[in-house]
C-alpha cells in the first residue's frame, strides 16, 4: 500500500471506507475516486442523483466594502453588480494574465463574500490574496471548519426537499440559508456536472450527519472524483492544474466569457496585449470516432504536423466515444479532422465545441448568463 499518512482526510474518510470506496491522492487530500464504478456513478448522476464529498475545496470569508476594498481588482468578473444571494464563476490572474485559480464567489451581504477555491491552490491563493488585498479587506480562511457536499442530478431538488422538509426554490447560481437539523446551512444551486444540482456548505462536524441523511434516500448513490471528472469533461468544463494553470490565460482557454472587460482587474493589460497580438495557442475540444480515448499528454496531429497536446481526455460514458480538450498552436475550424499517436495507438477525432453532452438539465447558456452582469 502507498503511504497516505501525509495526506489530508475529509470528515467522511471512514464513511468512504465503509462504502468500499477506492481512495487516491488528489490535491494533497486522500479522496474517494469511485464506489460502485465510474460509469455506474456517472450514469446515476445523469439520471437520478449522486452525492460527492467535496470537503477538500478551500473557502475564504472576505469582508470587503467595494467602495474601499480592492477585492474587485483581483477578480476578472464584476462583483459590484452581483445581487446578494448570488454567485459567480471567474478567475484570479497573475500579471501575465495566467490563471492563479478559477473560483466561485458568493455575495453573502453587501460587504461579505465567500470565495470557493481549488484544494491544491488554496494555500497559494491565500498567500496571493493576503499580499494583494488592501487594509480595507478582511480575509479569513475557513476551509478547515467548512465541509462541503454536492448533490447533483435531475432528482437532486426533490431529494433534498423531501429529506430535510424544505422548499429549495433557487435560481441557477444563487444560494440561500436553510434551517436544517437545527443548523443554518448555506445551499447554492451550483455544480460541476451539467445537471441540476446543489452544493451544501456545512460546519465540518455536521458533514457526516448530512451525508448519511441524504444517502438514506435510495435515489442517491455516492459518486467519486472519477465520475466528477467524466461528468465535467462531457460539459467541457476546465479542470485547474490540467486544462488551465498559471501559464494559460482565459483567452487561450476559451473562457473569455467570464471576464468583464468594462472593469479594471489584475492581468487585464496582458490579456489586451494577447488579444491584439493574436493567440499563439488556443484550446480545442475534440470527439474521437471510436470508444478509444485520447489521454492527457497525447500529441495532437493535424495534416501530418504535430500542433499540440491533450490536457484532458477520457471515454465519455454518456456518448460512448472518446472526448477531450487540448491546446494547439494553429487555428483549426470546427469539424476538421485531427489525429493522436501514442506508441501503437492511433485515434482519429474531429474538432467540436463545448459542451460535448447536450442533454444535461443545466444548459450552457444558463451558466454564461448567470456569471455575467
Amino acid at each position, binding site marked *: 500500500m502507498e503511504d497516505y499518512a501525509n495526506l489530508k482526510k475529509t470528515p467522511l474518510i471512514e464513511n468512504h471506507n465503509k462504502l468500499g470506496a477506492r481512495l487516491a491522492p488528489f490535491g494533497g487530500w486522500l479522496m474517494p475516486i469511485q464506489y460502485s464504478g465510474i460509469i455506474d456513478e456517472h450514469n446515476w448522476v445523469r439520471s437520478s442523483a449522486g452525492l460527492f464529498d467535496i470537503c477538500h475545496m478551500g473557502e475564504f470569508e472576505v469582508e470587503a466594502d467595494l467602495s474601499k476594498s480592492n477585492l474587485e481588482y483581483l477578480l476578472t468578473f464584476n462583483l459590484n453588480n452581483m445581487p446578494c444571494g448570488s454567485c459567480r464563476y471567474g478567475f484570479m490572474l497573475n500579471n501575465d494574465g495566467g490563471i492563479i485559480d478559477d473560483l466561485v464567489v458568493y455575495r453573502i451581504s453587501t460587504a461579505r463574500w465567500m470565495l470557493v477555491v481549488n484544494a491544491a491552490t488554496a494555500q497559494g491563493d491565500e498567500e496571493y490574496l493576503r499580499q494583494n488585498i488592501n487594509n480595507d479587506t478582511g480575509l479569513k480562511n475557513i476551509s478547515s471548519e467548512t465541509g462541503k457536499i454536492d448533490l447533483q442530478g435531475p432528482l437532486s431538488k426533490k431529494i433534498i426537499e423531501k429529506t430535510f422538509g424544505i422548499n429549495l426554490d433557487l435560481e441557477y447560481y444563487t444560494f440561500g440559508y436553510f434551517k436544517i437539523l437545527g443548523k443554518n446551512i448555506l445551499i447554492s444551486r451550483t455544480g460541476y456536472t451539467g445537471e441540476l444540482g446543489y452544493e451544501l456548505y456545512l460546519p465540518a462536524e455536521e458533514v457526516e450527519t448530512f451525508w448519511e441523511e441524504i444517502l438514506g434516500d435510495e435515489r442517491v448513490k455516492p459518486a467519486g472524483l472519477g465520475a466528477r471528472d467524466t461528468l465535467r469533461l462531457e460539459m467541457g468544463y476546465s479542470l485547474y492544474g490540467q486544462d488551465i494553470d498559471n501559464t494559460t490565460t482565459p483567452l487561450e482557454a476559451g473562457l473569455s466569457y467570464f471576464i468583464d472587460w468594462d472593469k479594471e482587474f489584475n492581468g487585464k493589460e496582458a490579456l489586451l496585449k494577447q488579444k491584439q497580438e493574436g493567440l499563439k495557442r488556443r484550446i480545442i475540444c475534440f470527439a474521437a470516432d471510436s470508444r478509444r480515448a485520447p489521454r492527457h499528454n497525447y500529441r495532437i496531429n493535424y495534416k501530418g504536423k504535430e500542433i499540440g497536446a491533450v490536457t484532458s481526455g477520457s471515454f465519455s460514458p454518456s456518448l460512448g466515444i472518446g472526448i477531450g480538450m487540448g491546446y494547439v498552436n494553429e487555428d483549426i475550424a470546427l469539424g476538421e479532422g485531427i489525429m493522436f499517436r501514442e506508441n*501503437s495507438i492511433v485515434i482519429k477525432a474531429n474538432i467540436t465545441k463545448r459542451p460535448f453532452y447536450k442533454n444535461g438539465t443545466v444548459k450552457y447558456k444558463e451558466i454564461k448568463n448567470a456569471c455575467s452582469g
Partner: protein
Amino acid sequence: MLVPDNLLFTKDHEWAKIEKDTATIGITDFAQHSLGDITFIDLPKPKAVLSQSKICATVESVKAASDVYSPLSGEVLKINGELANSPELVNKSPYEAGWFAVIKIADLKEKDALMDTAKYKEYVETLSK
C-alpha cells in the same frame, strides 16, 4: 478475487488456458478489478504472431490505457469479436465471456515460465497486503 483452477498466469495478470496445442488467453479478475470499467480493447489481428511477454493488446478503462502482454508465443487463430461492442464483458466475466484470443502454441515449454493457480493466488495475496 476469483482465480479458477487449471489456468496458467503471468505476473502481469494475464491468463492462459491450454488445450492440446492451442491456448485461450485473457486478463485476470485482479486485472479487471484494478482497471475499473473497461471501455475499449485493442485486440491482436487474426494470424498475427504473438511473442511471450510482448505486448499483444491494449485495454482502455475510463482512467487509463494499459498494455497486455502475451502469456505465450504463437499465431492468433481467433479473437473475441464480442469485445468490440461490449468491452465490459471483461469486467463481468474475465475468464469466460471476456476471453481475448485463441492462439496456436509455438513452444509448449514456455508454460514453465507461468504460475499455476496456487502460485498465482499466493502472488496476488502479496500484492494486496
